[in-house]
């Protein structure tokens, strides 16, 4: 039986990887991801997990090694953060193009400069076009569950795409939470062994990662895009089966107290729990406000999102990354694009908060919501604004 125990979230992530019985881990340590790969190197060294642990010389090599490993048909895992993710950038696009089901945990952290080891989403929001499936965890239990879900989805013969599980650096990665760790027999019920459809095998040779001449590149990109869009069916099915087996049900978009709401806050990741506390407080005061948060980010769950915000006139979108010189933050941009063709679309106000480890407090959410109520009556000139920035 599964036990609920106090555990650092990073350790829970690596325990999920261990229970998934991966064949290869290639990783380079970077704060705040280090504890995840450190623990995995220990369980491999102690013989608790029969896997190859490749201590590569950079994240560029880590992702390259993962691509080779996955191409050979091995269940493959890596984890990184911030500058490490940026260093992987050019290799990230290759994994989905080759349809390799690699699973990666990204402990989200700000990108330099200035140098910051602290949490925001600027690392992952710089990687929006890599064609990986992406989920965001809200708490430690979700991290554990989403890692298992990631392997299940990635390796499904209808999907065969890499998956990133995002977790907030420090806020989640370094926090000890009560987490229910499933046992091996339970995980085995959920996650069958990986059976690659095509792999590097001298007995049945294939060439992988070939050149795409102008006559074929467009078709290759279309095929990957379609695969990513269609992966949502499996993402949902795998969450449903997880819930049926273990009692925890997940949705691509979650709603909280949205009934009768005039303003809806939009968040993702760990700040969502603070946002819920803020919603409770504001609801007690009689303010009609609710929360919608993304668990699935790519493929963008547009129908579920539209359903969750149906009938609401005002959205207050919180972005944890800045898109300098652009129209607004990346999350607001996606939302605005998704809603543009809708009849009677709501007004979307964008608030950039929690950059480089700045706390996003209950008071911040109250400020954001009260601004959204004001703006709903009186249209503001600016397209986005930064919360808590000192205007002096």
């Amino acid at each position: 039986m599964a036990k609920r125990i106090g555990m650092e979230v990073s350790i829970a992530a690596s325990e999920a990887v261990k229970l998934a019985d991966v064949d290869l881990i290639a990783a380079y340590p970077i704060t705040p991801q280090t504890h995840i790969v450190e623990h995995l190197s220990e369980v491999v060294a102690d013989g608790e997990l029969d896997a190859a642990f490749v201590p590569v010389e950079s994240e560029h090599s880590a992702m390259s090694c993962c691509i080779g490993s996955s191409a050979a048909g091995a269940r493959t895992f890596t984890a990184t953060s911030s500058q490490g993710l940026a260093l992987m950038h050019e290799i990230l696009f290759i994994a989905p193009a080759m349809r390799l089901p690699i699973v990666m945990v990204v402990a989200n952290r700000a990108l330099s400069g200035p140098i910051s080891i602290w949490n925001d989403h600027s690392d992952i929001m710089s990687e929006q076009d890599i064609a990986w499936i992406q989920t965001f965890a809200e708490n430690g239990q979700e991290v554990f569950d989403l890692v298992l879900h990631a392997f299940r989805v990635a390796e499904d013969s209808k999907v065969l795409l890499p998956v990133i599980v995002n977790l907030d650096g420090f806020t989640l990665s370094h926090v000890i939470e009560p987490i229910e760790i499933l046992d091996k027999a339970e995980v085995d019920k959920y996650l069958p062994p990986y059976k690659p459809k095509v792999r590097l095998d001298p007995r049945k040779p294939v060439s992988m990662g070939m050149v795409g001449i102008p006559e074929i590149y467009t078709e290759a990109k279309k095929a990957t895009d379609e695969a990513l869009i269609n992966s949502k069916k499996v993402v949902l099915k795998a969450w449903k089966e997880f819930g049926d087996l273990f009692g925890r049900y997940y949705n691509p978009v979650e709603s909280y107290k949205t009934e009768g709401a005039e303003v809806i806050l939009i968040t993702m990741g760990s700040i969502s729990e603070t946002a819920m506390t803020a919603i409770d407080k504001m609801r007690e005061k009689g303010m009609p406000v609710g929360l919608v948060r993304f668990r699935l980010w790519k493929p963008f769950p547009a129908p579920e999102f539209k359903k969750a915000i149906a009938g609401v006139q005002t959205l207050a979108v919180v972005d944890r990354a800045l898109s300098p010189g652009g129209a607004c933050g990346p999350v607001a941009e996606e939302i605005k694009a998704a809603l543009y063709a809708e009849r009677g679309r709501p007004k979307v106000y964008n608030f950039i908060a929690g950059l480089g480890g700045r706390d996003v407090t209950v008071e911040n959410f109250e400020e954001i919501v009260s601004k959204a109520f004001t703006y709903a009556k009186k249209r503001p000139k600016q397209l986005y604004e930064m919360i808590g920035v000192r205007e002096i």
Partner: protein
Amino acid sequence: MAKIDAVMGWKKLDLGCVIRQPGSSRTFKTGDWRSQRPVVDRDKCIKCGLCWVYCPDLAMVPAEEGYYKVNLDYCKGCGICAKECPKDAITMVLEED
């Protein structure tokens, strides 16, 4: 424009664009990139085979009586054969001539 047998729609592409057939690059006839083509003067040719050795595209192929001829399906007109020929038996001629 390039005439390629491999052109197909996205639904027909193999998973991850893998190539299962060895040597399938033969179907990609790269000769149409060429602006100049090599012409061999058999009166000067001593059948040494250096053009065959140096051609990076294996477009110089052995022909009858020990001579070599150009396979224009793949010759990109780089001129290496003409440059390396010790007897100046190969001349690069503009395609439109």
